[in-house]
């Protein structure tokens, strides 16, 4: 594989950049693979990469209905954080933070990981207490957390509304300085390029139409480009999880909803980190291009449409305006939607299933992008070793029936409220 560097850039400049190697091939599916990963998004690509790299399983296919990086990995707001209170979520995502920190070097692809910090704002004493508790839990798990008072927040985001008349005054906030953002497409492309180089077949425009399950064991899958034999199948299909589960006669604790995001026109740098509003559901960061990247609530009803409705955008931005009045002067550049696999407790599932050889990776709710590396890493381990790793030992499917929920937000089973 051609290594990307300043020297290769200069060398290729002499031939007008016409002679770069393709970053990944476009293979025809073989009749049999050791492992088939369904879903060529961030998590599927990362899983295939770590299967090859950590477990030396290279006869792997990624089956993608559309094109790689065309789903949620290209639709998210690129926030990376590990500011969780529960041990299982905190450990899992902090391991992921370590992978993020080294990812550009590891993949030889600049994923533009930029640890610029995240601030969750508090708007009452009770919320400050809750954040102090969460911050302490984070620190016990080795994650950096800083409780900020009103003045400290004002130094960091002076453009927020600190006037006396506001309905939800800023009391302070909880900051994770090591959190940040990355370039989402680069994550998909970086993993794809390395996985392809190690022998993984990335098969795009290929739809899974069915599964061959004999005596409770996976024997293969049926696709729009022919049948493929395999003993191990990993599902990494996020918003399409319920559709494939139906083909397997499985019912899951997952509901599929549409989540919208939007960006404004680009403006000069004014916000260097990620900020979340604590009195509504609204988060904002500024991209390297200068656009304000914003998101918030789900549309609030089951949906497979990768688009939403305007009332939700209006509702989310009402929260945004309450926090940052300057937003009212900006034009909206575009809005878009992605479909979320909303789990019933708000935490993901990475596990084996009752079908031998079928592995499940789903339930990412709002926050799949930040977990892309660690999700792939633990899912690869689960598939290769046929057992869960310690890091995903609490992200099991049976936690709903046993009552060991990871209800980080304590919102219950109304996924559309969360």
């Amino acid at each position, binding site marked *: 594989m051609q290594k990307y560097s300043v020297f290769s850039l200069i060398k290729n400049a002499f031939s007008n950049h016409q002679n770069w190697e393709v970053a990944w091939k476009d293979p025809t599916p073989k009749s049999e693979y050791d492992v088939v990963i369904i879903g060529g998004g961030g998590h599927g690509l990362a899983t295939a990469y770590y299967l090859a790299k950590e477990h030396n399983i290279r006869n792997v296919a990624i089956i993608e209905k559309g094109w790689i990086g065309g789903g949620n990995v290209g639709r998210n707001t690129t926030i990376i954080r590990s500011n969780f209170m529960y041990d299982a979520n905190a450990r899992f995502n902090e391991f992921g933070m370590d992978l993020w920190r080294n990812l550009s070097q590891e993949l030889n692809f600049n994923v533009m990981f930029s640890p610029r910090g995240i601030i969750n704002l508090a708007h009452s004493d009770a919320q400050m207490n809750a954040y102090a508790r969460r911050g302490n839990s984070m620190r016990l798990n080795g994650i950096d957390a800083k409780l900020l008072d009103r003045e400290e927040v004002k130094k960091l985001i002076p453009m927020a509304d600190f006037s006396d008349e506001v309905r939800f005054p800023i009391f302070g906030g909880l900051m994770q300085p090591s959190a940040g953002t990355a370039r989402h497409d680069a994550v998909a492309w970086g993993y794809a390029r390395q996985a392809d180089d190690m022998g993984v077949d990335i098969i795009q425009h290929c739809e899974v139409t069915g599964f061959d399950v004999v005596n409770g064991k996976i024997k293969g899958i049926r696709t729009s480009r022919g049948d493929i034999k395999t003993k191990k199948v990993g599902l990494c299909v996020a918003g399409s999880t*319920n559709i494939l589960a139906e083909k397997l006669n499985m019912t*899951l604790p997952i*509901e599929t909803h549409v989540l919208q995001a939007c960006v404004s026109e680009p403006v000069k740098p004014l916000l260097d980190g990620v900020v979340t509003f604590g009195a509504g559901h609204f988060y904002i960061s500024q991209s390297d291009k200068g656009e304000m990247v914003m998101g918030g609530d789900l549309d609030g009803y*089951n949906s497979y449409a990768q688009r939403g409705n305007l*009332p939700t955008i209006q509702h989310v931005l009402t929260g945004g305006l309450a926090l940052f009045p300057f937003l009212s002067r900006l034009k909206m550049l575009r809005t878009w939607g992605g479909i979320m696999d909303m789990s*019933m407790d708000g935490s993901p599932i990475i596990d084996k299933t009752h079908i031998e050889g079928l592995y499940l990776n789903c339930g990412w709710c709002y926050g799949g992008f930040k977990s892309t590396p660690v999700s792939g890493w633990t899912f690869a381990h689960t598939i290769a070793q046929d057992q869960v790793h310690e890091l995903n030992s609490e992200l099991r499917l049976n936690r709903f*029936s046993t009552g060991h929920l990871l209800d980080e937000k304590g919102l219950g089973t109304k996924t559309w409220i969360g």
Partner: protein
Amino acid sequence: MLYIKCPYCGLRAQKEFSYGGDATVKRPNINEEVSSEDWDNFVYMRKSPRGKHIELWQHIAGCRQWIKVQRDTATHEIFQTAKVTEEIR
């Protein structure tokens, strides 16, 4: 914007309603022995189909009645609405 025909009030904007989830899920009968699996299915397990979906909505900023709506989850088209005591087929 979705427009939902409330069986009591007529066609109204989505903003007047709040969502209540899958209307086909049945709560286990209260005076009978209920297995953990039945509870699990009732509380957590959802089909979440792509296509026609029968769901509950409440006309929260109107008559405050719960209603049933049959809607396509892929296109957002609404086919039928009914009172919560009525069946949608």
